[in-house]
């Protein structure tokens, strides 16, 4: 790229190939990042972005290819080695320890010592505060990480890398868990880092973000580099086509809904968390037959507890839940299910499946005790088998047979097993909790279509998702949940405004500390930005 007379790029990855049994995760990938550059790595889930970064960070050994830092070839053997060479990584799932303090998390592995045994906690604290100020935020080194918001946790992750004097910073899907407002703030931090000469690799599959933040964009598809673009020369459509390989329709056909009477009514519901805090504080809403109601909100605002109270996994401490006119507040999980409540859980391996059980046993997990699957307490294996064969065919579950353990299936097919079990015709209400998390595009499309089909058949659907895009795509109405309360209930697209909902998710509609409440994206962008700059002067 650069001429022979100029300095070599800060980082070059040349011809990186990484094979796993049956797949080539990376195929001859070239990537170079200059000092002071924000370089976006764009690609779908499973395109090979994370593998490439694991190679860079010493978590995976490449089969072919080489890595050069400032033009010098290097061998990166493990994370400690990568850190020592100035590479810092902010993982998609934060690598923070919730019960430890900010300072302890930052120190870990790069301890500032008073002597050969004990930590120098005072010096560490001083350096952390100083570092935070340099990049525009004031952080309390003694705060416990579990008490911080996701946005602040991400800043701790960034500080962790900077404390180790990282000059190359990799951020893997950093905005996936952030509200639009938090995203803007993090972007400001990234720009400041770049201005100081840090190289930043920004991994994402969100087109508009990449266009906004990156100096250069490299697109990966199926393990190969398919193009490098400057933001000024490209647009969302162009990038989408590069990323997916065909012209894509960015939204599914939702059609119009014909809602009728309410089938799920929640009134003034109050629920406590495991730690005894009231995390659902007087929530009320109604889902009507034939509509999809979405609950938007940053993870951890009481959605999990709300869903558990509706499905019967958790007792509520106040309020009522009605299912098709009947008060089910005190009912057991089984009673609710038998009266037409279906539920696709957010954590499919924890709640949805018994991975060691066969596919057929998982398909009858909620109705094994009824005819025709059982007579008395004796199981009817033939009927279970027949049912399983039918469902496997109907939902196109890719499995060698009904008799293999569900744990051997791919994530998408595991989710299909759950969908096949839960999406039954006689449902009155279907609760979908993060139904597409971690799935490939094909599976997402399949599940979205199923959801809309079920809605059109007259079921009321409650969709909970941390992905605002998914909510906007599917929902007829959207409720925003903030700190255990429903702070707004708006109509879905085309009425819904993404920025408005994002702001509600982040602040609950109250005046944010950083600046005035705003409606338009332009103003939202500037408000926190100024505050960041203000903090450093």
């Amino acid at each position, binding site marked *: 790229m650069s001429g022979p007379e100029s300095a070599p790029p800060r980082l070059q990855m040349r011809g990186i190939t990484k094979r796993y049994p049956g797949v080539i995760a990376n195929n001859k990938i070239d990537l170079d990042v200059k000092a002071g550059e924000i370089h976006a790595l764009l690609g779908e889930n499973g395109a090979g972005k994370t593998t490439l970064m694991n190679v860079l960070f010493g978590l995976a050994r490449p089969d072919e290819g080489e890595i050069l830092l400032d033009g010098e070839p290097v061998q990166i053997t493990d994370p400690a080695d990568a850190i020592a060479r100035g590479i810092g990584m902010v993982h998609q799932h934060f690598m923070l320890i919730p019960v430890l303090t900010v300072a302890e998390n930052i120190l870990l592995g790069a301890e500032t010592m008073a002597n050969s045994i004990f930590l120098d906690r005072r010096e560490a604290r001083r350096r952390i505060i100083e570092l935070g100020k340099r990049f525009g935020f004031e952080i309390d080194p003694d705060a416990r990480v579990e008490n911080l918001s996701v946005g602040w946790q991400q800043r701790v992750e960034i500080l962790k890398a900077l404390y180790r004097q990282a000059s190359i910073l990799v951020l893997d899907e950093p905005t996936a868990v952030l509200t639009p407002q938090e995203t803007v703030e993090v972007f400001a931090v990234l720009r400041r880092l770049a201005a100081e000469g840090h190289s930043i690799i920004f991994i994402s599959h969100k087109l508009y973000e990449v266009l906004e933040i990156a100096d250069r964009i490299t697109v990966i598809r199926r393990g190969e580099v398919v193009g490098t673009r400057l933001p000024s020369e490209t647009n969302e459509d162009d990038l989408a086509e590069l990323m997916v390989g065909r012209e894509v329709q960015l939204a599914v056909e939702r059609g119009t809904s014909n809602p009728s009477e309410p089938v799920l009514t929640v009134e003034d519901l109050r629920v406590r968390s495991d730690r005894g805090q009231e995390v659902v504080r007087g929530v009320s809403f109604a889902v009507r037959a034939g509509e999809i109601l979405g609950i938007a909100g940053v993870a951890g605002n009481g959605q999990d507890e709300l869903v558990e109270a509706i499905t019967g996994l958790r007792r509520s401490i106040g309020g009522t839940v009605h299912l098709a006119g009947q008060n089910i507040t005190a009912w057991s999980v089984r009673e609710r299910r038998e009266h037409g409540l279906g539920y696709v*859980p957010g954590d499919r391996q924890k709640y949805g499946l018994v991975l060691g059980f066969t596919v057929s046993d998982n398909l009858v997990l909620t109705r094994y005790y009824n005819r025709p699957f059982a007579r008395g307490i004796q199981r009817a294996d033939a009927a279970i088998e027949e049912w399983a064969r039918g469902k496997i065919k109907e939902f196109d579950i890719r499995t060698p047979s009904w008799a293999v353990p569900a744990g051997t299936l791919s994530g998408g097919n595991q989710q299909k097993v759950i969908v096949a079990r839960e999406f039954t015709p006689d449902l009155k209400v279907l609760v979908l909790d993060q139904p597409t998390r971690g799935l490939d595009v094909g599976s997402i499309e399949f599940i979205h279509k199923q959801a809309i089909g079920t809605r059109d058949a007259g079921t009321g659907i409650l969709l909970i998702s941390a992905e605002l895009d998914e909510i906007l795509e599917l929902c007829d109405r959207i409720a925003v949940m903030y700190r255990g309360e429903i702070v707004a209930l708006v109509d879905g697209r085309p009425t819904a405004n993404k920025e408005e909902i994002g702001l509600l998710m982040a602040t609950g509609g109250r005046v944010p500390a950083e600046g005035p409440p705003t409606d338009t994206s332009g103003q939202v962008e500037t408000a926190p930005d100024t505050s960041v700059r203000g903090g450093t002067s």
Partner: protein
Amino acid sequence: MISRPRSYAGWVLVPALSILLALLVASVLIIASGVIGRQRELDLLLPLVAYRSLLVGAFGNLRGIANTIVAATPLMLTGLAVGVGLKAGLFNIGATGQVLLGGFAAALVGTQVADAPLFIAVPVAMLGGILAGALAGFIPGFLKAFTGAHEVVTTIMLNALIQLIVSGLVNDIFRVPGFSFARTATVGNAALTGFGGTTIHLGAIFAFVCIPLSYWLLWRTTVGFEIRAVGANPTAALYAGMHPRRMMILTMSLCGAFAGLAGAIEILRLGYYPAVFGTSIGFDGITVALLGRADPVGILFSALLLGAMRAGAPLMQIEARVPVEIIDVIQGVILIFLAAEIVVRRIFRLRTTPEAGELQTITRTYGEKVVG
């Protein structure tokens, strides 16, 4: 083993090889026993002598075979007491205490029905043992379900407590005069006596019936499905509308009932309850269950194997002067090899993949409150 074994041949390979390796390791100890024991001589053939007398003692004649079956009878039951628990994700190492309480209750009931006809007295006394054992299992099950206290610690503590309580009761209240040691009155007609000149008794039938019964329960009924679902994934069981807490209590009580029956059989065979009643069948049950992969069929065979060792050991001690305690050592080493399945596979270059099983599911609930 959560789904049923695909082939029993591949499934028994690792346990069988573990036994083989354990016997090899024990050989070293047996040779050492020759050197440091009374004989004070190095005899490399001593293990062969010992294992030969072990075999002869266990299978050499009708009496040996009968002794093997009699020894295996309670082991099947304590094996089930541990194995069925493992299926529900519970590690019941309290079979010892459940055996003691079951035996004690059987002795008390037995003295009450001592004059009733045999076919009434024996089942009634056994029922007493079953219920008492179930109670001893219920307690840790309840504590686990509602407080999260892990059954491994509570059952061990209960083992000690039950021993103290029962021996105290026998010494202070139920002791009958006329004997040099503290014991309860005789159970009369409730006693289990041998058939046709052998030591084989009615209790064996009960134990042999329990094996297919628990197989049916675990694999052919909805209750068994729930037990296995709770064991494999308690949160998913809860989500599916099952009741993990209820199942834990039920399963632990069932385990206790098996162990209680084992205790009843041992005590009714003896005819009374002695204040100092030491028995290894509770702990042997752990070996039986793990060796049998917590499967009723596996438990049957490993109980017979361990029973044969127990039955043959006295002859081995007489002929080869190897203390019977070597059986305990062999058990431990078998278990180490079982746990280190990887090593066994490497030694014998096995290709088959290990099946995910109970050996990896117990610790999950350690220190956690149970859901549901």
